[in-house]
């Protein structure tokens, strides 16, 4: 009954597109509650003016809850959503399962070649673009220029980890609750492990070798974890094992942090109205160790259509509207260039108006320096910079994240933590059939 009704509706869309205006189609769009997505919901009058026959129902949820709901829906073929907001981690996995609709047939004026190559590469599986990027981000160093000046130091545009340590030491004054560096410590594959995995790339470490053997027993991981623990124990804020993106953002905005290495989108917050240090913030690329890779990640919140959707044409029309160049211009005209969703299109960064935004260039350089298909120094069998795009990674990453978080809290040594991570990941990868 419902199915035939849906088939009829689906058919009506095809007819409507063919020129015969028929009944209104309602599509359900699931999205995260990030600022850029919320802004889009306020601009829907433009979409309705152009597409009077499509109505959009929003499901706006916090990231974790959203991921849980859309994953359950897509894996069980629920068909409740017509457009889903998903990240660079999900796209390769879901694309391989044929759970997503290919977006290769978007209209020519969508200009798919304008998408930033690194971002587009992360959303493409076997030549099919499975999701359209809404905004992209990398990570970079945000630091307090006033504190650096006071210490007589200058931050290079492309610092090394040694530069970072020197700066952290100089800016730390615990009596004034001023900590040289704030980094993520909260356990989770998208929290501390996003940071640590990206950081480990710059140390030449990798999660797995070409035969899927875990590499936590290698010296590169030891160097990564030792450096991280040293920085945080000596120069970090107390209770850091519970700090995620948001906690660190708050600390930085209040002036407790000298440096913070995190998502490029944070730039607009630390220079925004809620920040007490807005006038003193400067940016630098994520650090490296002279090995040719930097410790920055790559992420894009993207719009995709589940194969179970019965209204794929209407969904495509919506995605085209929400991610094409006209949308960027629309946001700019209503809310200013600084509020345009960043990190998706080359043309945006070539626009002289956008180049005036203070963190524009650093964001672009950071995104361009991350390569999901060759994330680290040595070859790897997986895709992903700060994650490993295999279904098992959310569980593995979170488990390892807990172990490293415990090391940060002083509950175990770095060596014990690495040995434990190695043993658990080996067990899980064997059980999952990667290691024969």
């Amino acid at each position, binding site marked *: 009954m*419902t199915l035939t009704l849906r088939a009829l509706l689906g058919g009506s869309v095809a007819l409507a597109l063919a020129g015969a205006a028929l009944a209104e189609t309602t599509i*359900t769009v*699931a999205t*995260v*509650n*990030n*600022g850029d997505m*919320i802004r889009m*919901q306020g601009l829907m009058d433009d979409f309705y003016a152009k597409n009077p026959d499509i109505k959009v*129902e*929003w*499901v*706006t*949820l*916090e*990231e974790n*809850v959203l991921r*849980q*709901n859309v994953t*359950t829906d897509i894996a*069980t073929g*629920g068909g*409740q*959503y017509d457009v889903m907001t998903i990240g660079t981690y999900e796209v390769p996995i879901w694309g391989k399962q044929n759970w997503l609709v290919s977006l290769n047939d978007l209209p020519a004026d969508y200009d798919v070649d304008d998408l930033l190559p690194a971002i587009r590469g992360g959303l493409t599986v076997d030549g099919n673009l499975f999701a359209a990027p809404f905004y992209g981000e990398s990570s970079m160093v945000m630091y307090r220029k006033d504190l650096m000046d006071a210490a007589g130091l200058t931050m290079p545009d492309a610092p090394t980890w040694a530069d970072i340590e020197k700066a952290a030491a100089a800016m730390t004054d615990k009596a004034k*609750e001023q900590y040289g560096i704030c980094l993520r410590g909260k356990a989770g594959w998208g929290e501390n492990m996003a940071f640590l995995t990206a950081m480990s790339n710059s140390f030449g470490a990798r999660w797995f070798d070409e035969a899927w053997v875990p590499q936590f027993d290698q010296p590169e991981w030891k160097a990564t974890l030792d450096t991280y623990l040293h920085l945080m124990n000596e120069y970090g804020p107390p209770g850091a094992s519970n700090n995620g*993106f*948001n906690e660190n*953002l*708050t600390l930085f*905005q*209040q002036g407790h942090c000298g440096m913070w290495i995190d998502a490029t*989108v944070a730039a607009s*917050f630390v220079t925004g*109205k*809620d*920040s*007490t240090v807005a006038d003193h913030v400067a940016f630098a690329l994520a650090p490296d160790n002279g090995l040719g890779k930097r410790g920055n990640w790559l992420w894009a919140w993207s719009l995709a259509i589940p194969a179970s959707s019965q209204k794929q044409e209407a969904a495509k029309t919506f995605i085209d509207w929400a991610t094409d160049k006209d949308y960027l211009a629309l946001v700019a005209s209503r809310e200013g260039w600084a509020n345009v969703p960043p990190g998706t299109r080359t043309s945006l960064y070539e626009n002289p108006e956008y180049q005036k935004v203070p963190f524009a260039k650093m964001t672009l350089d950071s995104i361009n320096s991350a390569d999901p298909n060759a994330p680290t120094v040595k070859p790897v069998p997986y895709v992903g910079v700060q994650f490993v795009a295999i279904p098992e990674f959310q569980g593995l990453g979170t488990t390892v994240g807990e172990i490293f978080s415990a090391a940060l809290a002083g509950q175990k040594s770095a060596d014990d933590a690495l040995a434990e991570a190695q043993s658990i990941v080996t067990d899980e990868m064997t059980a999952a059939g990667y290691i024969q």
Partner: protein
Amino acid sequence: MARAHSPRRMLITTIAAWGVALLIFFPVLWMILTSFKTEASAVASPPQLFTADWTTENYAEVWARSDYPRFFWNSVVISVGSTLLGLALAIPAAWSMAFVPGRRTKDLLMWMLSTKMMPAVAVMVPLYLVFQKTGLFDTRIGLVLALMLMNLPIIVWMLYTYFKEIPGEILEAARMDGASLWNEIVHVLTPMAVPGIASTLLLNVILAWNEAFWTITLTTVRAAPLSAFIASFSAPQGLFYAKLSAASAMAIAPILILGWFSQKQLVRGLTFGAVK
């Protein structure tokens, strides 16, 4: 309440009771205060009880950002509906267990409670599939049924306890007078059990109102209640405590006001409970 109290003692207990009550209430009060602050002063260090820049902008933003009335109405329908349906099933059951107990009544009670022993997350996918296949997914009736079944054991238990307080002789007497079973329940038992039923009702409306796992897992748009509304305000990006506080205040306000107005009813109900 015939006992005499000296004014002095009344003063001391009043101060003590208010002190304790304010201490328990303080986090809620703090949340409400936070909802009127700017995001920056919400996390000011050291925390400020009062700030200079009071604002209602958080409420305006929360209101503008989502369809509050729809979430609100879904919450009302789901929590009240599931509680009333639960009471309709539970009152007769609790009556019979309290006044005509069999050998296995206690086991039956315990078994009812045991239906709640499975952790919700463990049955997430099975129940999700059941709801999908039966067309109950994202419907208010589906959530009414789910929450009713989830809380039914609690309703039966609480009613059973309160009914047990009522001396069986009163019912015996009514029966002697030739009251039918129906009359016995409606005209004799229920009035005496009003306090118990009132507090069961209140507690279960709150339990259903606050349920934040199934109500989010089993809905998308049409049936999503205030728990989903809240889940759209704990933002992973940017400061959000003031906005989250405002959204939370909006989510608890209706039930707080309900509690406030039903207070007289409730207190009268509660004091009626001095069954002799």
